[in-house]
């Protein structure tokens, strides 16, 4: 049986070491960065004029309420300036020809009318453009000019002309001092050669007008969830003020209507969009945080808070934010005459028709695929499922129907940000594996001239370059005056002004000045170091100076732009900022970054599906792997499973996987435990002891993947363990598989399944994610076995997210009865004689029902396998429930805070098999960003200890958020520069002042502050 997407491409010509990623949202960016960091050249193609996708429009993200833009913008900047990623925006993929491994893709670039090589993103054009157009970034709630940047942080930061709105008056060309406007731009075609392709085109929100009963587009105060997202955002139409459209008033009563365009067969979308429950909860919470008197109500069928930490968030919404949840679908929304308020009609839980008045109605729109994405898929020969999403198989969740083309993100199935990010990394691993033999063939590494040594005692010779930034700075700040002033400052031997300091010719000018004037420090007074420092650092490095000898004064974003109407003061402030930069630059020192070798070998702990997949994928990418399993056989939880809900044969898959794991590059250590662990990314040493002989060995490896998995909890109560007729789902599955039935296979037996046993309670607040689907899976199986069987599933919320929803619908069609219970009124199981009895509240009949079931099946919680000691050894954190805690819930779903250690599978949180496989691939992609390098660069901005002054007081050891400092054998604190992340907390607290942070030394900060006031 062939389950793997691995192709036998050994007989083919050498593959091309480049990948095309289609779609530059959070998924596309993640995949691109992982690939580029693992030795592959990436073409990142986006149909939009900028990358960033839908995430760029979001205000906050659940369940952490992180600001979406804050956490995303580093990835934007990295993707935009990575030397091995070429971002191609405003473009479509026309076709892909050729065999996997050596595809030829044709890209159509739409004209932008602004030259990328010249535009500096200053925005003068947009400020002058006389034509206004609808701003789609703000979902049409505001307007923008015909020449525009989609959003302020956009990458690439290149404007474009909206040809539909533009009337061609020519004003932008006149005001553009950079000469970037090019009205002659035409559509162009380009062919690129790539070895593999990743599709990450994302989703489109459902068209709310297709549900006319809710009045979107008719009643102004009916808005969509994404519109609310923009309204709540600081860059939104009202600058984060919550105002309703009809009259600009702050709405008090807000209704969220769930499942608009999801779980709806009528519009063809009988799948669940997976994210709407959580984003509605989030929007309700954020609205409440903005305006305390807001009263949010969420109308829903089920609240699908199935992800990590989601249920706690949902509970918090109820308890701390008074968000009201009504289990009912809204049938109609109408406007109340005159007020703009809305009357929402629904059947309440008693089944009575009710109507309630709201000030604002928000439609929680589902995810769909756009027509253009579906068309692209058709052109590329990629099969879609009946909902228009990319078709994938359970055991190969990253592979499309066309070999060499992989998929990730919402295009594969509706999903949230962390799952998209994880899957994107996963797709990167799959795409890389395909062309692993061509690693490093197309990527380039910058070669620099040797560095001139600048000794600390050497007199500083500073060159200052002051930027006009067109008129962005020059129009407010008197640049020549600042230049003259700079000349008077100590150690400044050269000062110059430029129209655009970031332009290519100015870089040459700076390099020449370094040579001509013997500069050993360079200062650019222009915009923000956050965006431009890397570029200028590169320039001075090319001129032979250490990059840390560069300094920036931000006289645009933090001066001319914010003091436009006070030119004289702005000029004075600019002078001061330059003075501060000079004071600081004098103390800048060359910092060396040293290369440390990487042990190009991996260690995977845990031999379940995630661990085996990770080991196999690493091996297939060409790395040696140690796979450590504590049991005497591989397989983990898969050993207990037999079939998937889609009908996949788990055991056959497992056999095949175990077979493949017997790979020449994989060392399998069964009956083995990790007993010690040390080292840092790139070079870990792990001690493993193998039973029964208790052989101890030390393994050296560059990365570690934790895949220790989860298991079904043995339930407490419901007569489990006391009566053989009370089983868990796993036990049921085993019996179903073995055909071990006894009396219940005949007649019309009564089966009751109880959901959330051991989940969503005080001890274990999380949802176990997979049990709803498992219950549906087993119920369908039972029904098939004996259609006369009466099956009831007692649930709290049915959480069959994504396409699993279709099986839930099927179960209901086949007569399986779903009965909701509240946790306060849990079902009761007892025995009268030999008769098993179960009683529960029936909400619809409003009475207590008692049944005499032949079988009770408990959907028991998924709990992490014993991992506490391992977590202690590796110093990785766990959640209160014992699952491993990743570095960042949203954007680093498989990384730990300590670099070089990754997590995969159910040890992270409960998961389906396909999800564990995706995540294992993801961990591999992240691991390859280290393993693919021979050396790692370390040092630079790190904390250093002056050992003599250290009092060994342990303050640094205690305050370091990353547990880096240790007190060494000499009784002095020691900070490993490989681990130090450079925050400086230790330097700020060391009572002996024995620690300093390089490049932000106490001396430098004090010099800056001194320059601020002193003359």
């Amino acid at each position, binding site marked *: 049986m062939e389950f793997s997407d691995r192709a036998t491409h050994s007989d083919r010509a050498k593959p091309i070491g480049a990948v095309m990623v289609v779609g530059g949202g959070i998924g596309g960016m993640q995949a691109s960065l992982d690939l580029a960091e693992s030795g592959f050249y990436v073409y990142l193609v986006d149909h939009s004029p900028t990358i960033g996708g839908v995430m760029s429009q979001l205000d906050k993200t659940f369940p952490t309420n992180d600001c979406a833009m804050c956490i995303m913008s580093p990835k934007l900047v990295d993707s935009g300036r990575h030397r091995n990623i070429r971002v191609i925006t405003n473009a479509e993929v026309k076709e892909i020809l050729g065999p996997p491994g050596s595809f030829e893709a044709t890209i159509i670039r739409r004209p932008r009318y602004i030259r990328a090589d010249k535009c500096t993103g200053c925005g003068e054009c947009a400020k002058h453009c*006389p034509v*206004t157009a609808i701003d789609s970034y703000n979902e049409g709630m505001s*307007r923008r000019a015909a020449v525009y940047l989609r959003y302020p942080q956009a990458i690439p930061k290149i404007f474009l002309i909206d040809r539909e709105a533009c*009337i061609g008056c*020519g*004003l932008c060309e006149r005001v553009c001092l950079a000469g970037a406007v090019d009205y002659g731009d035409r559509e162009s075609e380009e062919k690129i050669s790539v070895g593999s392709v990743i599709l990450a085109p994302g989703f489109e929100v459902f068209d709310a007008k297709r549900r006319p009963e809710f009045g979107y587009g008719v009643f102004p105060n009916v808005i969509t969830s994404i519109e609310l997202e923009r309204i709540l955002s600081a860059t939104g*139409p*009202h*600058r984060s003020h919550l105002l309703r459209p009809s009259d*600009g008033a702050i709405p008090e009563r807000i209704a969220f209507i769930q499942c608009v365009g999801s779980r709806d067969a009528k519009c063809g979308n009988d799948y669940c969009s997976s994210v709407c429950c959580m984003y509605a909860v989030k929007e309700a919470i954020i609205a409440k945080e903005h305006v305390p008197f807001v009263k949010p109500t969420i109308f829903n069928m089920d609240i699908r808070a199935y992800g990590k930490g989601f249920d706690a968030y949902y509970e918090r919404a109820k308890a701390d934010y008074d968000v009201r949840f009504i289990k009912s679908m809204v049938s109609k929304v109408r406007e109340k005459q005159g007020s703009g308020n809305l009357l929402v009609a629904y059947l309440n839980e008693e089944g009575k028709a009710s109507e309630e008045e709201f000030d604002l109605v928000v439609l929680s729109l589902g995810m769909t695929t756009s027509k253009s994405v579906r068309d692209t898929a058709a052109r590329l020969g990629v099969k879609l499922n009946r909902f228009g999403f990319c078709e994938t198989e359970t055991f190969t969740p990253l592979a499309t129907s066309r070999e060499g083309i992989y998929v990730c993100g919402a295009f594969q199935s509706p999903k949230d940000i962390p799952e998209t990010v994880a899957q994107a990394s996963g797709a990167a691993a799959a795409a890389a594996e395909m062309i692993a033999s061509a690693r490093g063939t197309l990527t380039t590494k910058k070669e620099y001239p040797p560095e001139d040594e600048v000794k600390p005692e050497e007199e500083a010779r500073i060159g200052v370059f002051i930027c006009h930034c067109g008129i962005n700075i020059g129009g407010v700040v008197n640049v020549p005056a600042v230049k003259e002033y700079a000349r008077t400052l100590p150690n400044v031997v050269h000062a110059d002004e430029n129209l655009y300091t970031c332009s290519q010719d100015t870089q040459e000018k700076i390099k020449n000045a370094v040579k001509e004037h013997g500069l050993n420090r360079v200062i650019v007074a222009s915009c923000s170091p956050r965006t431009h420092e890397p570029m200028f650092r590169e320039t001075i490095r090319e001129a032979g100076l250490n990059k840390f000898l560069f300094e920036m004064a931000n006289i645009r974003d933090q001066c001319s732009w914010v003091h436009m109407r006070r030119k004289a003061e702005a000029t004075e402030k600019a002078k001061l900022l330059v003075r501060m930069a000079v004071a600081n630059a004098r103390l800048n020192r060359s910092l060396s970054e040293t290369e440390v070798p990487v042990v190009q070998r991996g260690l995977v702990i845990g031999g379940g599906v995630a661990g085996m997949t990770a080991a196999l994928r690493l091996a297939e990418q060409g790395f040696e792997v140690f796979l450590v399993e504590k049991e005497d056989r591989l397989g983990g939880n898969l050993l207990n499973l037999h079939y998937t809900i889609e009908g996949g044969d788990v055991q056959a898959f497992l056999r095949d996987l175990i077979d493949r794991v017997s790979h020449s590059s994989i060392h399998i250590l069964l009956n083995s435990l990790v007993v010690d662990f040390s080292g840092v990314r790139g070079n870990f040493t792990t001690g493993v002891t193998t039973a029964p002989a208790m052989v101890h060995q030390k393994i050296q490896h560059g990365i570690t993947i934790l895949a220790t998995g989860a298991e079904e909890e043995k339930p407490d109560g419901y007569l489990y363990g006391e009566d053989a007729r009370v089983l868990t789902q796993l036990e049921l599955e085993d019996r179903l598989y073995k055909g071990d039935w006894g009396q219940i296979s005949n007649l019309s037996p009564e089966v009751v399944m109880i959901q959330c046993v051991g989940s969503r309670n005080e001890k274990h607040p999380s949802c176990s994610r997979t049990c709803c689907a498992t219950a549906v899976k087993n119920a369908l199986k039972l029904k098939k076995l004996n259609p006369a069987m009466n099956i009831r599933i007692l649930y709290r919320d049915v959480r069959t997210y994504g396409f699993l929803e279709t099986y839930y619908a099927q179960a209901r069609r086949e007569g399986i009865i779903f009965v909701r219970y509240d946790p306060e009124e849990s079902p009761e199981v007892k025995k009268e004689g030999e008769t098993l009895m179960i009683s529960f509240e029936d909400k619809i009949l409003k009475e207590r029902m008692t049944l005499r079931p032949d079988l009770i099946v408990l959907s028991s919680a998924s709990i992490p396998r014993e991992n506490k000691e391992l977590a202690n050894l590796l110093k990785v954190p766990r959640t209160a429930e014992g699952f491993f805690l990743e570095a960042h819930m949203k954007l680093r779903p498989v990384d730990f805070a300590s670099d070089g250690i990754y997590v995969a599978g159910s040890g992270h949180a409960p998961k389906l098999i396909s999800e564990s496989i995706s995540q294992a691939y993801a961990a591999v992609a992240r691991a390859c960003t280290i393993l693919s390098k021979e050396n790692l660069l370390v040092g630079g901005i790190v904390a250093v200890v002056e050992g003599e002054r250290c009092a060994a007081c342990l303050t640094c050891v205690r305050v370091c958020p990353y547990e880096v400092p240790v007190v060494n054998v000499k009784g002095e604190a020691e900070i490993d520069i490989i681990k130090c992340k450079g925050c400086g907390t230790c330097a700020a607290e060391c009572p002996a002042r024995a620690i300093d942070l390089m490049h932000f030394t106490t001396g430098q900060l004090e010099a800056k502050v001194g320059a601020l006031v002193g003359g």
Partner: protein
Amino acid sequence: MSFEPKILSFLCNWCAYAGADLAGISRFQYPPNTRVIRVMCSGRIDPAFIPRTFLAGFDGVMILGCHPGDCHYISGNIQAERKIAFLRKLLADEGIGGERLLLDWVSAGEGQRFAELTKGFTELIRSLGPFPVTEEMEGKLRAIHASLAGEKIRWMVGKAPELMEKENVYGERVDAERVGEVLETTVREELRKNRILIFLEAGTMTAKEISKKLNLSLKETLPLLVSLVGEGGIGFDPSEESHYPRYVRSG
């Protein structure tokens, strides 16, 4: 005391001014209420001058140029006509009738016509009474002036004929209707935004109050507020905590 209108006349050098001289040579009598500014061509008249004229205390403005086809500069008068028509629309939008603004043609030989036009216009203004410079009116005029003086509008107004008659930067001829529409929306929006900025000089206001004062529906007013907030010209009064936020001038 009876009302003596104050009238400002812009006369083109080649026709109207010569016509006025001829009226003098011919001793045609007309009322002394007009003050003359000589311009080389009626095309020189910037529509932004007009609101300032009223703000400066004049009760009427006359612009006299060459007859169509006779312009010394080929089409200056035609352009003047277009610009003034445009201005009239703006004035009308704000409820200011265009009757106090006269654009007409006087050739170098029409001394008589010059005197009659002047006489007629003076009488008309006399009958209309003094220009009502109320606080509200002042705000409107300031707003109109600010909008017309902005670079965007001036560029558009100047470019419009080229776009319609020749071609735009893409080598296409733009439909006159489209140009008119863009011009009008742009100007109208600028004007209204300027008015809002002027309102808020006096204190904070809710959206409803602004819309009432603009005499516009809330639906038309809100997008203007959104734009102004986006441009940073106005913000929200942080001290207000009711259901109706109040806008303030910022910066």
